[in-house]
C-alpha cells in the first residue's frame, strides 16, 4: 500500500492498513465497534449461518464475517434497518434456544448466545421458542446433544469436518426441522465419532455439552429432570424480559467462579503437547476447555486429552509408600520408606561401587524431574547409569539427526507440517498416535491442496487418505529412501545451491548410494521401479517437504540408519532451513523430548553436552561440589543385561512400566527378580512395581507444577490444578527428599528453582524461565539468554561448529524376515483411545466401554487361509514367548501381517513376543521385527471390538456445514432482505 486508506464506519473515518484479506467483522472488532456474531469463531472463521453480523456495506446488507474490507468502504452498523436485520437474526436464534440461564450448566460467563443477546439489549423475544421435537441424544460416552438448545450455527460440523477432519457431523438442511446428525443419522454412540470432543468445545451454548459438567457447574443445576423443568418454566415467568433474567443469571455465573477452578495444564499423553484449561471443583474434574491461544493445538484435542482423566481420581491410586516383606507389601510412612531406600543404596554403593546402581527416568514426568533424576545419579550416587524411555522409541531418530544436522529435535513446528506442500509419513500411524498433528495434515490436504505421501505396512487412516500410499516390506524403508535420493540426484533434481552452501561430504555420500539402484530397491522393498520414480518426482516437485516418522522407522535394527536416510534425503532436496520443510520425528510421550533434553541419558548432561567433555563436566562439578563420573553410563538395554551379569544390583524407576513396555519381557522380568533393590515410583501398583522392594506413591500431572517439552521442542508450563492425593508426592519432591537422606540438601521448594539451575548450567536452555513461560506462553529451544527462542531450526546454520550439515553414507544388510517356523510378521503400535500399556486409559469407563480390550488385526486373506472368523482366539508364539489374544478381521492389514496394539498389560502384551534385538547404534529394541506363528484356540466368538466402537462407523465427508443448502431452503429469507 502506498498510502494509508480510510474506511468509513457510521460516518466516522478510520484508518485501514490495507490488509485485503481482512473481513469487515475483523475490522470492526479491531476498532472496537460491537456487532453480534454468534456463529463466527476465531479458529473456524466465517461460517455464515447465523446472520447476526449483518451490516450495510456501501448501501447493501451483507454478512460482515464474510465481506472483505476495501478502500473507501462505507459501513453502517447502527442504522435502524441494520439493527432490525440483526434483531431478526437474533430472534431466529432465540426461537431455537430456550433461555433458562440460571439453571443451565453452560452459564459460566462464556455462553456466546447469552452474551450476544445481552450485548444487543434485546428485551423480548420476537419469535417464540418452539421445541424441535427431537429427543436429547445422550448415548455417547462423553458428550450429549440437546436439539432443543441447538441454534444450528454449524460450528460443531465445521470443526468435525474441517478441523478434526473425522467427518462425522453434518446438519441435515433438507428436513422440515434441521438438526445435527451423526454419520447418516445414527445415535452418537454408534457413529464414527472418535470423541475428540471438539464439537462440545466450540459449541457456543449448551447444545453440545460435555457430560462431566452436567449438573455440576451451577448452584441449582443438579436437579431431577422434573424439578429442573419446573424451574426452567418458573425462571422464564419470574424473569419476564431478558434484562432481569440476565441480571440473575450473571450473578449466579459470577458465584460459580468461586467454586470452579480453571487451571492451565499440558496434556500428559502423546508428544503433540496440547495445552488447555482444566475445570475442577475440588478434586472433581468437570471438563477440559481448550483455548484458541494454545500454541501446539489451539482448540484441538483427542479423546484422551479431552476426556481421559479418570485415572487421576481412580480408587486404585497408591496412597502409601509400600515396603516388600516376604510375599506382601506393608504400608509404611514416608520417612521409613525413604530411609530404607537410602540405606540400601548406600550399602550397594559401598560394596559394589556407584555403577552398581541404575536409574530410569519417566518420559511422562516433567523436565525438572528428569533434571533431578540425573543430578541424583551423577551427584549423589556418582554414576552415569541414567536413561529414560526414549530409548524405547525415539533415540534412533535423534541419532539420525545428530549425524546429519546436529540437533536432536523437530526441524520446525506443527505449523510447518501444516503448511508444507508435501507431507511424507513413514512408519507413523499419525491419526491414532498423534491425532492432533494428523488433523492438521488432514485439514491441509482436504482444504489447502497439500499432498500426502504415506509409507506403512498397514492401511491406516492416513494411508487411506494419502495421495499415494506404499507398503514396503518390513525394515526396508532405508532402501526406498536411499534409492529415491539416488534417483533424484541422478536426474539432477537435487538442490545443488543448497548443498554447495550448506552440506559437507556430498561426493562421498553420492558414491555410497551406488548400490541403491531402483532395481535393487524394488527387489528388497517390493515397491515397483515406476512407483519409486513417481515418489522421487513427487518429492522433487514440491517446494517444501516435511517428513514425519515414528516407531515404524525407529524400532528396527536399522532404526538410526533409516532416520539418517530421511535426513539425507531432506538435505539433498534442500528441505531444511525454511518454513514448511524439515525432519519431524514425532515424539511419543508428552515429555519424551524433554526427559532426554534435561539429561536423563547415559552420555549427555542436560542440553546434549557430553559427559566425556571435561570442560562441561567441570562446569557441573563446580556447581555441584563433587567430582563427577567420566565414563558414559549404561542405557536401559545395557542395564538389563548388566543385572543378568550381576554388575548392577539396584535400580530406581519413576513413572515407567518397564515390565510391560520393554522388549522381551520374560528376560526383563527375570532381571528384576535378580535385583537387590528395586524402587518404583508410580501412581499405580504397575507390573513393574510388583517386583519392587519399595514402592513410592507419586502424584499426577494435575497435582503438581513443572514443564513438559513437546515434539516441537516447545517448553510449556503446567500448573497445579488440585492438591496431591493424600500422602502422595511429586516425583521431584521425592527425589529431593531422598537426596537429603543421602546427605545432599538441595533445598528445592518448587520446580521453578530446579529450572533456574538447569538454565544456568545448560546453554541450550539459557533463557528458559518460569516468568517467560507464564500461562500459554512457550519457548522452543534453543533459547538464548535474552529469551529469544527458535521455532525454526538451522536458519543461522546447522548444529555443528562450522554451521554446515553433513551427508552421512549408509549401507544396508537385510536384518530381519519371517521364516518357515515363524511365518507371520506381527506389527505393533498404538491405537487412538488407549495409551501405552493402558495404566491410565483403562481407568476411563467411557473409553473402556467402547474399547474394552486389545485385539489382533488379521487380514481377510489370512483369516480365510487359517479358517478364522471375527472373535477367534489365538495364541501367538515367538522364539521368546507367547501371547493370547482375540481376533478382529480387517483389511487394514494385508496377507501375513498382523497388527497387535500395544495397549495391554496382561496376556496380550506384545512384549511377551518381542526379542532382545536392538538398533545397532542406539540399543533401541527392534519391536517392529517380530515374527510369530499362530495357533488357533477358538475359531470364532464375540468380537473384541464392540458394535459401538468408532471403527464400525461410516463417516459422511463434506466441506463445512454447507450453508448454501440452508440458504436454498424455501423458508429462508436473508434478514437483510426482509427489512428492506
Amino acid at each position, binding site marked *: 500500500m502506498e498510502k494509508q486508506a480510510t474506511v468509513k464506519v457510521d460516518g466516522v473515518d478510520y484508518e485501514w492498513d490495507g490488509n485485503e484479506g481482512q473481513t469487515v467483522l475483523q475490522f470492526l472488532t479491531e476498532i472496537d465497534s460491537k456487532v453480534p456474531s454468534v456463529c463466527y469463531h476465531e479458529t473456524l472463521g466465517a461460517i455464515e449461518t447465523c446472520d447476526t453480523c449483518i451490516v450495510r456495506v456501501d448501501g447493501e446488507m451483507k454478512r460482515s464475517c464474510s465481506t472483505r474490507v476495501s478502500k473507501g468502504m462505507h459501513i453502517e452498523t447502527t442504522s435502524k434497518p441494520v439493527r432490525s436485520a440483526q434483531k431478526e437474526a437474533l430472534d431466529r436464534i432465540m426461537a431455537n434456544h430456550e433461555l433458562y440461564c440460571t439453571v443451565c450448566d453452560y452459564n459460566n460467563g462464556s455462553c456466546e448466545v447469552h452474551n450476544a443477546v445481552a450485548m444487543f439489549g434485546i428485551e423480548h423475544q420476537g419469535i417464540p421458542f418452539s421445541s424441535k421435537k427431537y429427543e436429547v441424544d445422550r448415548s455417547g460416552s462423553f458428550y450429549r446433544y440437546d436439539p432443543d438448545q441447538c441454534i444450528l450455527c454449524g460450528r460443531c460440523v465445521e470443526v468435525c469436518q474441517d478441523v478434526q477432519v473425522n467427518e462425522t457431523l453434518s446438519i441435515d438442511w433438507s428436513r422440515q426441522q434441521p438438526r445435527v446428525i451423526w454419520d447418516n443419522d445414527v445415535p452418537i454412540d454408534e457413529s464414527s465419532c472418535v470423541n475428540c470432543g471438539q464439537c462440545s468445545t466450540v459449541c457456543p451454548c449448551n447444545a453440545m455439552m460435555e457430560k462431566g459438567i452436567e449438573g455440576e457447574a451451577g448452584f441449582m443445576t443438579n436437579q431431577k429432570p422434573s424439578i429442573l423443568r419446573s424451574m426452567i*418454566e*418458573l425462571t422464564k415467568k*419470574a*424473569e419476564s424480559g431478558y434484562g432481569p433474567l440476565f441480571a440473575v443469571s450473571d450473578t449466579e455465573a459470577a458465584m460459580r467462579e468461586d467454586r470452579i477452578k480453571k487451571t492451565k495444564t499440558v496434556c500428559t499423553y502423546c508428544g503433540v503437547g496440547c495445552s488447555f484449561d482444566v475445570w475442577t471443583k475440588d478434586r472433581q474434574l468437570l471438563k477440559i476447555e481448550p483455548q484458541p491461544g494454545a500454541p501446539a493445538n489451539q482448540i484441538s484435542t483427542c479423546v484422551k486429552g479431552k476426556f481421559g482423566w479418570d485415572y487421576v481420581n481412580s480408587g486404585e491410586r497408591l496412597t502409601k509408600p509400600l515396603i516388600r516383606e516376604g510375599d506382601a507389601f506393608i504400608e509404611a510412612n514416608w520417612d521409613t520408606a525413604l530411609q530404607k531406600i537410602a540405606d540400601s543404596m548406600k550399602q550397594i554403593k559401598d560394596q559394589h561401587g556407584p555403577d552398581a546402581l541404575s536409574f530410569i527416568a519417566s518420559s511422562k514426568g516433567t523436565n525438572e524431574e528428569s533434571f533431578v533424576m540425573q543430578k541424583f545419579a551423577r551427584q549423589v550416587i556418582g554414576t552415569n547409569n541414567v536413561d529414560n524411555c526414549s530409548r524405547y522409541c525415539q533415540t534412533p531418530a535423534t541419532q539420525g539427526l545428530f549425524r546429519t544436522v546436529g540437533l536432536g529435535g523437530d526441524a520446525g513446528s506443527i505449523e510447518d507440517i501444516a503448511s508444507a506442500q508435501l507431507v511424507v509419513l513413514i512408519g507413523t500411524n499419525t491419526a491414532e498416535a498423534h491425532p492432533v498433528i494428523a488433523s492438521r495434515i488432514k485439514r491441509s490436504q482436504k482444504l489447502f491442496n497439500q499432498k500426502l505421501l504415506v509409507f506403512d505396512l498397514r492401511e491406516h487412516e492416513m494411508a487411506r487418505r494419502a495421495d499415494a500410499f506404499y507398503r514396503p516390506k518390513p525394515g526396508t524403508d532405508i532402501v526406498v529412501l536411499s534409492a529415491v535420493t539416488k534417483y533424484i540426484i541422478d536426474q539432477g533434481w537435487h538442490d545443488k545451491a543448497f548443498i554447495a552452501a550448506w552440506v559437507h561430504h556430498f561426493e562421498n555420500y553420492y558414491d555410497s548410494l551406488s548400490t541403491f539402484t531402483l532395481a535393487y530397491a524394488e527387489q528388497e522393498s517390493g515397491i515397483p521401479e515406476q512407483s519409486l520414480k513417481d515418489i522421487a518426482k513427487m518429492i522433487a516437485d514440491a517446494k517444501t517437504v516435511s517428513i514425519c516418522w515414528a516407531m515404524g522407522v525407529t524400532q528396527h535394527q536399522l532404526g538410526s540408519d533409516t532416520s539418517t536416510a530421511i535426513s539425507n534425503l531432506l538435505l539433498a532436496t534442500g528441505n531444511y532451513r525454511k518454513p514448511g520443510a524439515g525432519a519431524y520425528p514425532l515424539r511419543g510421550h508428552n515429555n519424551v523430548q524433554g526427559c532426554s533434553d534435561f539429561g536423563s541419558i547415559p552420555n549427555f548432561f542436560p542440553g546434549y553436552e557430553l559427559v566425556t567433555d571435561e570442560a562441561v563436566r567441570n562446569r557441573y562439578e563446580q556447581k555441584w561440589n563433587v567430582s563427577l563420573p567420566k565414563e558414559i553410563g549404561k542405557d536401559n538395554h545395557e542395564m538389563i543385561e548388566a543385572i543378568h551379569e550381576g554388575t548392577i544390583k539396584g535400580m530406581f524407576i519413576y513413572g515407567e512400566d518397564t515390565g510391560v513396555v520393554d522388549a522381551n519381557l520374560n528376560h526383563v522380568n527375570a532381571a528384576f527378580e535378580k535385583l537387590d533393590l528395586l524402587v518404583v515410583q508410580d501412581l499405580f501398583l504397575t507390573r513393574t512395581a510388583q517386583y519392587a522392594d519399595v514402592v513410592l506413591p507419586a502424584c499426577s500431572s494435575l497435582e503438581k507444577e513443572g514443564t513438559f517439552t513437546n515434539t516441537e521442542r516447545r517448553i510449556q508450563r503446567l500448573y497445579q490444578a488440585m492438591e496431591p492425593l493424600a500422602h502422595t508426592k511429586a516425583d521431584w519432591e521425592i527425589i529431593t527428599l531422598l537426596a537429603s537422606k543421602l546427605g545432599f540438601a538441595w533445598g528445592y521448594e518448587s520446580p521453578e528453582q530446579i529450572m533456574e539451575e538447569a538454565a544456568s548450567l545448560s546453554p541450550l536452555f539459557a533463557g528458559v524461565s518460569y516468568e517467560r513461560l507464564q500461562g500459554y506462553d512457550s519457548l522452543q529451544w534453543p533459547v538464548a539468554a535474552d529469551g529469544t527462542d527458535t521455532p525454526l531450526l538451522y536458519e543461522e546454520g546447522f548444529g555443528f561448529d562450522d554451521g554446515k550439515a553433513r551427508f552421512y553414507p549408509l549401507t544396508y544388510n537385510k536384518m530381519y524376515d519371517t521364516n518357515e517356523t515363524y511365518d507371520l510378521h506381527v506389527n505393533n503400535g498404538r491405537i487412538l483411545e488407549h495409551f501405552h500399556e493402558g495404566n491410565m486409559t483403562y481407568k476411563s469407563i467411557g473409553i473402556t466401554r467402547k474399547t474394552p480390550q486389545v485385539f489382533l488385526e488379521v487380514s481377510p486373506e489370512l483369516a480365510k487361509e487359517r479358517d478364522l472368523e471375527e472373535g477367534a482366539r489365538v495364541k501367538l508364539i515367538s522364539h521368546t514367548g507367547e501371547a493370547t489374544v482375540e481376533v478382529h478381521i480387517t483389511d487394514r492389514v494385508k496377507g501375513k501381517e498382523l497388527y497387535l496394539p500395544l495397549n495391554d498389560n496382561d496376556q496380550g502384551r506384545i512384549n511377551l513376543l518381542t526379542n532382545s534385538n536392538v538398533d545397532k547404534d542406539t540399543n533401541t529394541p527392534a519391536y517392529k521385527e517380530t515374527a510369530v506363528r499362530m495357533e488357533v484356540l477358538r475359531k470364532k466368538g464375540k468380537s473384541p471390538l464392540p458394535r459401538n466402537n468408532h471403527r464400525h462407523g461410516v463417516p459422511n465427508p463434506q466441506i463445512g456445514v454447507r450453508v448454501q443448502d440452508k440458504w436454498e431452503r424455501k423458508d429462508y429469507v436473508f434478514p437483510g432482505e426482509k427489512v428492506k
Partner: protein
Amino acid sequence: MAKPITMIKRVTMSKEEMKLQKQERLENKLAENSESLEKVVELMKVLDDAGALDILVSLVRHRDDALENITKEANKERYAKVLENLSGFLFLLGELDVEKVTTLTGRINKGMEGAIQGSETEERTSVLDLAKALKDPEINRGITMMLHMLKGLGKQPEK
C-alpha cells in the same frame, strides 16, 4: 529373588488413634478461631431458642420436596399474574421520577398539615370566600398545580 506380588497389608490406625488424631486437629482449629466460634455459638443459641434450627433441619432434609412443591405451586396459573405483576412493579418503579415524586409528596404533606389545622376551626366556606381565597398566593399556587396535574392525567398516552 523378588517375585511379583500384589498383596498389600494395610497398616490401619486403631480407632482410638484415628479419633485422637482428629480430636487434636479439631482442638487446634478451635483455639485458632475462638472469637468467631463464640459468636457462632451465640447465634446458634438464639436461633434454637426461636425454634428456627428445627425448622431449618427439617427443611434442608426435605429440600428436594420443598423445591418441588414450591416450583410446582409457583408454576400454577393463578400465580402467573403475581409473578408478572412483581416484575411489572419493578419496571413501574424504574419509570417513576423520584425527584418529582419527592417534591410532590412534600407538598402533599404540607397540604395535609394545613388541612388538619383547618379542620380544627369551625368556619364554613362560601363561594365568595373561595374567590377571595384565590387571592391568597399559597392557595392559588395549590389550585394551579392541581389544575396542571389534571391536565397531565388527561393527556393521551405516548405511543
